[in-house]
C-alpha cells in the first residue's frame, strides 16, 4: 500500500506541474484561440534562469525573479511575432509559435551546455512522513505552489476588473472591444501570465532533479492535459494536469508487472494514450465547450 500512496503523491506532484503548464496553454487559448507551442521554451528559460540566480539570491526570490523575467520575455515575443498575425488563420499562428519555441530553446540550450545544472531548491530528495507514508517534500511543494497559483488565478479572473475584461475578451473579442476592453492588453497579459506559469513549472521540474537540455519534453505533456480537460476550461486544465500526472505515475509503478509487453518507459507516453481514448468518446475534452458552427 505504501508503494501505491507514494505513487499517488508522485503523480499529484508531477501532475500539478502539468496543471501549471496547462493553465498557461488554456489562458493563451482562451484569449487568442491559439495553442502556443512556445510554452516548452518558456519553461526551459525559467528553469535555466533560476540555475544562474540560485547561487546569488534566495531560492524563492530567484523563482519570483525568473517568473517575472520570463513573463517579460513572453510579452515581448507576443508583441514582435504574434501580434502582427492577429486575424490570420490559427494554424499559421500556431506554427509561428512552433518556430519561436525552436529558436528560444536553442539559445537557452547554449546557456545549459552539455552539463546538468541545479536549481538550488531547499527540498532536494528529503522525505516527510505523512500518515505513515514517506512522501518526498518536493512533491508537496509542487502541489502547494500550484494550489497557491491556481487560487490566485481564479481570484484574479473572478474579482478583479482586468480579470473580468479578460473573461469578456475570451467570450467575444469584438463586442468587448466595443465596450472599451483593451483587447491588445488582454493578449499581452495572457502571454505574460502563461510565460510566468511556465517558468515556475520549469523550476519545480528541476527541483530535486536537475536541468538539462531535455527538460522541455515535459512541457508537451501538458498538451494531453489540456485536450483532456477541454481547450477552453481553466478548471479542466487543472484536473487534466493532475489526472495526467496520476495516470503516468501509476502506470510507471504497475505497468512493468501487469503489462510488460508495453515496453519500458511506457509511462512516458501513457498520457497520449489517455488523450486518444478520451477524445474518441468526447471530442471536446471532458470540460470543453462544444463548438457550435454556423455557416
Amino acid at each position: 500500500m505504501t508503494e501505491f500512496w507514494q505513487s499517488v503523491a508522485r503523480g499529484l506532484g508531477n501532475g500539478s506541474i502539468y496543471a501549471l503548464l496547462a493553465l498557461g496553454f488554456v489562458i493563451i487559448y482562451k484569449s487568442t484561440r491559439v495553442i502556443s507551442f512556445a510554452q516548452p521554451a518558456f519553461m526551459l528559460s525559467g528553469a535555466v534562469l533560476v540555475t544562474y540566480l540560485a547561487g546569488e539570491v534566495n531560492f524563492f526570490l530567484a523563482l519570483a525573479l525568473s517568473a517575472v523575467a520570463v513573463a517579460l520575455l513572453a510579452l515581448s515575443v507576443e508583441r514582435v511575432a504574434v501580434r502582427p498575425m492577429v486575424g490570420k488563420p490559427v494554424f499559421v499562428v500556431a506554427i509561428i509559435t512552433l518556430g519561436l519555441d525552436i529558436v528560444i530553446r536553442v539559445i537557452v540550450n547554449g546557456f545549459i551546455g552539455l552539463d546538468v545544472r541545479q536549481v538550488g531548491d531547499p527540498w532536494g530528495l528529503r522525505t516527510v512522513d505523512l500518515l505513515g507514508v514517506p512522501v518526498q517534500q518536493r512533491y508537496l511543494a509542487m502541489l502547494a505552489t500550484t494550489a497557491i497559483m491556481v487560487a490566485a488565478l481564479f481570484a484574479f479572473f473572478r474579482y478583479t476588473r482586468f480579470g473580468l475584461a479578460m473573461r469578456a475578451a475570451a467570450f467575444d473579442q469584438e463586442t468587448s472591444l466595443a465596450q472599451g476592453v483593451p483587447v491588445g492588453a488582454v493578449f499581452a497579459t495572457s502571454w505574460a501570465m502563461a510565460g510566468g506559469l511556465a517558468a515556475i513549472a520549469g523550476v519545480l521540474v528541476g527541483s530535486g532533479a536537475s536541468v538539462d537540455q531535455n527538460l522541455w519534453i515535459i512541457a508537451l505533456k501538458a498538451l494531453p492535459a489540456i485536450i483532456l480537460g477541454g481547450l477552453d476550461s481553466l478548471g479542466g486544465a487543472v484536473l487534466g494536469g493532475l489526472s495526467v500526472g496520476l495516470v503516468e505515475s501509476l502506470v510507471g509503478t504497475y505497468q512493468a508487472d501487469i503489462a510488460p509487453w508495453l515496453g519500458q518507459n511506457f509511462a512516458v507516453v501513457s498520457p497520449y494514450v489517455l488523450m486518444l481514448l478520451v477524445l474518441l468518446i468526447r471530442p471536446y475534452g471532458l470540460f470543453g465547450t462544444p463548438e457550435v458552427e454556423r455557416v
Partner: protein
Amino acid sequence: MNTLLERRGTRRPRGRPLLYTSYKQDMALLDTPAKRRWLIALLVVALLAPFMLTDDILQLLAVGLVASIGAIGLNIVTGYAGQISLGHAFFLAIGAYTAAAISGDPDGKVIGFGVTSILVWLPAAGLAAALAGVIVAPLATRLRGLYLAVVTLGLVFLGEHIFKEWDSLTGGPGVGRPSATVELFGVRLDEAGAYSKEQKLYLLMLVLLVLFAVLARNLTRSRVGRAFAAVRDRDIAAAIIGVDLRRTKLLAFAISSFYAGIAGALLYTVTGFFDPGSFNLLLSIQFIAMILIGGVATVSGAIMGAMFITLLPRITRELPGVLPFISSESKDTPNVFQVETVLYGLLIIAFLILEPRGLFGVWTRIRNYWKAWPFSY
C-alpha cells in the same frame, strides 16, 4: 501526353498562346508555353546533373528529391485539405520500417524477409503507411483544427515509443538497422557498378519524384482535389454542397500517408542505415517547414521547400569560414548545428509573417515583375 499538352479539338489561334478556347486547355497541367519550356529545361538539367556533380552533392540532392515526395504528401493533407498534421514523422517511420523489413536480410539481427525488389517493397511501404493513415483519419473527422494538431503530435510520441521498444524490428535506439535494399530487375542500385551508387539512386529518386509530382498535380485539379480545397476553406459549407466530409478527410490522410510511406522507405537508402530515434517531432517540424517555406498548397512549392531545407545544413556548414565566431564543433557555442536549428525556426516565422505563399510566392512575384516589364511597378 494529350492531357499534358492539349492540342486536339479546338486549336488556339496562331500567336495567341494564352488564349484558351476550351475547358481542356484551361485545365491543362502545363497551360502556358512558358511552363512547358521551363519544365523541359529543368528536367534536362536534372537529368544531366548526375554526370556533372560530385557524389556527395548528388547524395544530398537525392535526399532532397525524396524529401520532396514526403513534402508533397504533407501538402496534400495540410495544404490542400487543410487538416493540420504534425504526425508526418510517424507515417514516414511506418514506410521506412515496412520497406526495410520486407527487403532486409532474413539471417540478420533484425526482421527481414529478403524480398529486395523495389517493385515489391516500395508499394508495400506506401500501402502500409496509407493503412495507418486510414486508421488515424476517423480522429480527423471528429476533431477540428488545433485539436487535430495536438493529437497527431501525440501520434509521433507514441510511434517513437513503439519503434524504440520494438527492437527486433528497428534494432533499438542508438543501434538502428540497415535500410531497404534497392534492387530493380536484378540490378543493385545501392552498390557502385558501371555508375556510382549516388548516380543510380539520384536518377531513381528523380524518376519517382516526377511520377509522384505529376500524380499529385493531377489529383489536385480533379473532383477529389476540389473537394479537398472545399473542406479546407469551409468544411460545413462543403458538406452542404454535397462533399462527403468523412470520405474526403479519409482520402486526404490515406493519400498523404501513402506519399509519406514512399518517402520514408527511400529516405534512408542513401545513407544505408537508420535509427528509431530519428522519427521525432523535429522531423515532423522539418516537413512542416518545407511546405511553409516552399508554399502551401502547391506541388512545385513543396519541392522547392524540401530542396531548400535539405540543402540548408550544407550551407550552414560553410558558415564558420565566413563568420569566424561560429564554431563547427558541437561542444562550442554558437556552433553550426545550433545556427541550423535556429534558422529553421526563424525562416518559418519570417516566411509566415512576410511571405505566406513561401518560395512559390517569391517566384510568382519575380515572374510577374518581368512579365509586365518595363511597365511593372
